């Protein structure tokens, strides 16, 4: 797959991820559901796994994280948006690092049990890693500064919080891999308009949502 096609895919999938974080994430928070867990274990890991099956090139998931995190910064509502943006970018990078380390060849992941195991590892590492990175970087970007003692004291809670995303991702990863097996391939004349429209629609909806909330 050529670079232009990959970049268009990164923009489309990253924008979809950012859209989900901003709009669906807010709905989940309003419904008092564990938004962070669901967003990471279902949407982030689902889209990242799907992207890995479509675009094997390195840097794809980091790029998606940057696009989604930037979109999250445009929507200053629903929880800590700076923390969320940092966590999203970190999750993209951690996913890429982990899957590069474990295996870049999806043909090795033929059995459902192996896919579930990779889902558990990915869900846990991506969630706990993203949580940890944001606990370090958010204070560093504020006037209070970062105190390592705060992170150390809260480490058991962070480690425990990864359990639910791990279980959910055990279903998300096999599902995303199975989706790739569906006979859905876009030809070039359709591919670029579809990816551009997906990205543009995601950004427009998030910006419109921000403007509506700012000027109700």
């Amino acid at each position, binding site marked *: 797959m050529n670079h232009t096609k990959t970049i268009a895919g990164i923009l489309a999938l990253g924008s979809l991820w950012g859209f989900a974080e901003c709009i669906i994430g807010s709905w989940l928070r309003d419904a008092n559901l564990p938004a962070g867990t669901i967003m990471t274990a279902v949407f982030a890991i689902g889209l990242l796994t799907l992207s890995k099956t479509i675009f094997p090139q390195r840097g794809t998931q980091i790029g998606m994280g940057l696009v989604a995190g930037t979109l999250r910064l445009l929507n200053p509502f629903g929880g800590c948006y700076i923390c969320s943006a940092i966590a999203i970018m970190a999750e993209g990078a951690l996913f890429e690092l982990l899957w590069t380390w474990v295996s870049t060849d999806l043909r090795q992941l033929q059995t459902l049990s192996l896919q579930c195991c990779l889902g558990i590892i990915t869900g846990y590492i991506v969630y706990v890693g993203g949580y940890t990175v944001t606990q370090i970087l958010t*204070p560093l970007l504020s006037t209070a*500064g970062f*105190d390592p*003692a*705060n992170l150390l004291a809260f480490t058991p809670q962070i480690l425990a919080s990864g*359990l639910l995303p791990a279980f959910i991702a055990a279903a998300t990863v096999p599902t995303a891999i199975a989706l790739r097996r569906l006979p859905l391939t876009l030809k070039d004349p359709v591919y670029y308009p579809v990816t551009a429209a997906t990205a543009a629609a995601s950004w427009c909806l998030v910006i419109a949502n921000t403007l509506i909330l700012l000027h109700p």
Partner: protein
Amino acid sequence: MGKANIVLTLGALSVLLLGSISTLYITQTQAKTQTLTINNQTYTIDQLFTQITPRSFTDLNANGIALDDLIRLAGVATPEDHQYTIIGADGYQKTVTWDNLQHGLLTRQRQTVFSDLPKAFNVRNVTTIEVKAP
């Protein structure tokens, strides 16, 4: 069983074990107190709201007692020379400066709110505010 199988299976079991042990640990250590300890003095939230006049942050839609008033009530000498660690019942904690405290409130639900800091500094179910040397 191939190498990839072993690595992935052991990896999955390890993270599940780590998460489970951590969950057990925090259920054993979580604080269940209804009081607040500030500079080694213990108060209930009702006592604090009786002794200190609440303020409001209209931009944050929050109402509560100012954290700098709280520190003065606890009798901290030269408060600007210290840092303050706010600790929640779940172990979540954040260290802030005197400048930050002057932009912070403690709500009746025992949650801190700051107008000058990200929401990551909102500690829920505050149990302790430690006064630290800078």
